[in-house]
């Protein structure tokens, strides 16, 4: 039940200010007379330019944490600091403006896109909602984003149901980076995708991070993907943090029994002998 904060140090040994910092986040859902503690006293830090992973099984609360960080769900208690400012205290127009700096990619690309909007409209939406960019300039930006995700310009006129899962997810990523955010929250972005497509998306995300100088909060139940992608990791179970630390440390020498059980449950594949 204790909160374990991660404060990785920079090379000089001093503690850098994290891009996002959460303290004692708790979320209690009141459903039909019963209270359900989805998240219990979770604290975390994400340093700029790093990837923090949250792993856990269903019901662990990891998605709820992601949504609280994005303020899509209001925390019952706790505080979130983003870019040095108190995010939990913001509301209205101030909160809207802050949303430009943090975006989210969801798990299910099939329902994350409005079936009635063309891909071009979908990618234009962030600009239409948050900026005054219109007309030719908007077209240019949309095409530039299509380029970044390696989709042909003709896809502007297509509808989501005509795209494959991987293509749809790329469109969602384009929407998320359109406004040049600093933090990208990824909620199981590859869970609904095929293995080879998952690899494409992961490599794309790695490439994008360095190119656009992004910071990631990566939620997943797939330990192998988290091991591959994340610098630091938090393990959650039933709403609380069980263990946290750098990915290497947690995976090589897990301290908590639950973490060990999780890692052991993953089926091993006898590997290629090159």
């Amino acid at each position: 039940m204790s909160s374990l904060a991660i404060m990785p140090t920079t090379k000089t040994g001093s503690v850098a200010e994290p891009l996002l910092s959460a303290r004692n986040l708790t979320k209690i859902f009141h459903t039909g007379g019963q209270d359900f503690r989805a998240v219990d006293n979770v604290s975390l830090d994400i340093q700029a330019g790093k990837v923090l992973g949250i792993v856990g099984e269903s019901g662990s609360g990891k998605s709820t944490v992601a949504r609280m960080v994005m303020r899509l769900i209001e925390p019952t208690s706790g505080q979130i600091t983003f870019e040095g400012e108190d995010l939990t205290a913001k509301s209205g127009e101030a909160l809207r403006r802050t949303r430009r700096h943090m975006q989210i990619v969801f798990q299910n690309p099939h329902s994350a896109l409005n079936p009635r909007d063309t891909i071009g409209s979908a990618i234009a939406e962030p600009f239409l909602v948050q900026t005054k960019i219109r007309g030719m300039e908007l077209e240019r930006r949309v095409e530039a984003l299509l380029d970044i995700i390696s989709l042909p310009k003709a896809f502007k006129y297509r509808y989501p149901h005509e795209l494959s899962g991987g293509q749809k997810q790329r469109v969602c990523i384009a929407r998320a980076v359109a406004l040049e955010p600093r933090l990208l929250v990824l909620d199981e972005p590859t869970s609904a995708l095929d293995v080879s497509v998952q690899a494409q998306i992961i490599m794309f995300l790695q490439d994008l991070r360095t190119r656009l100088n992004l910071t990631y909060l990566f939620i997943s139940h797939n330990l192998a993907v988290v091991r591959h992608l994340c610098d630091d990791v938090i393990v959650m179970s039933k709403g609380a943090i069980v263990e946290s630390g750098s990915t290497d440390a947690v995976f090589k020498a897990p301290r908590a029994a639950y973490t060990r059980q999780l890692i052991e449950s993953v089926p091993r594949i006898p590997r290629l002998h090159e």
Partner: protein
Amino acid sequence: MTALLNIDNYRLDIPTFDGVLKVLDGIDITLEQGDTLGIVGESGCGKTVLARSILGIGPRNAKRVSGHIVFDSTALDELSEADWRRVRGVKISMIFQDPMTYLNPLLTIGRQLSDVIAAHYRAQGKSAPGRAERHARCERLLEQVQIADTQRVLKSYPHQLSGGMRQRILIAMALAGEPKLLIADEPTTALDVTIQAQILKLLRDLVDRLGLTVVMISHDVGAIAALSRRVAVMYAGTVVEQGMAESILTRPRHPYTRGLLAALPDIEGDAQPLESIPGTIPNLINPPSGCRFHPRCLRATAICRQEKPETRSVGADHVVACHHAYD
């Protein structure tokens, strides 16, 4: 010894508004009694259509173009509904991905299990056993799938039970008719990784204890590796590689299998960079000529475009369909 299940050059077409989907293009799969076969592939490879076709519950307007499916010396292609009722659940059973949608939310587990038992009896022309007998059988079935608290579970409704428990119950229902073959279509995909490990272990135990033959369909190579002694890799309606799991996973010969395995991040984390397969899954209305994988294959040459590769043996129980297989 004759194979328990023999799928021989099976071709299936599905007519759609946009054209004819050539969804299965000459599938050859052999399965012996007591074997565990994992069919692995990504979306659109046809593995689910194949699994359902074995039981005759494939897409309604699908047309078998050629080939046969033979189970225990019975051809499954031209069975009547009455014949099917003697096969489904009794000789061949199937479990599916999401246990919640396959259980009736309005009936207790005991009732549902009991109904299945009664149905099997009636299908064989015998009258259903009495309530006490059925209750005893239900308990035995639950014990078989390692559920301890049988009384409580029999009185429960599906929504009161966890995902893992529900999948166990589905397995119990599938075993009610004492089938020889169990087809499991993505049985662990919707489950947490710890529960997945339990279910895979349960399936392994059932294979050992009951001599059950299992075909497991999955896109999760890990789950396949955990359960299957033999593996068939499918791509775009064709079987590209088939044989002993150990052999295929440690020394894949087909470029697609290689690509698939290289795309998997390793939990042991040896920091190998991921490789992905270029391109996307082909459109099955106009599939690529010759080898269906050739547009995405780094080793493709002219012959790959012209001729569909034959299936060749490359070792003891290891076959590949490729013009340029790896050594």
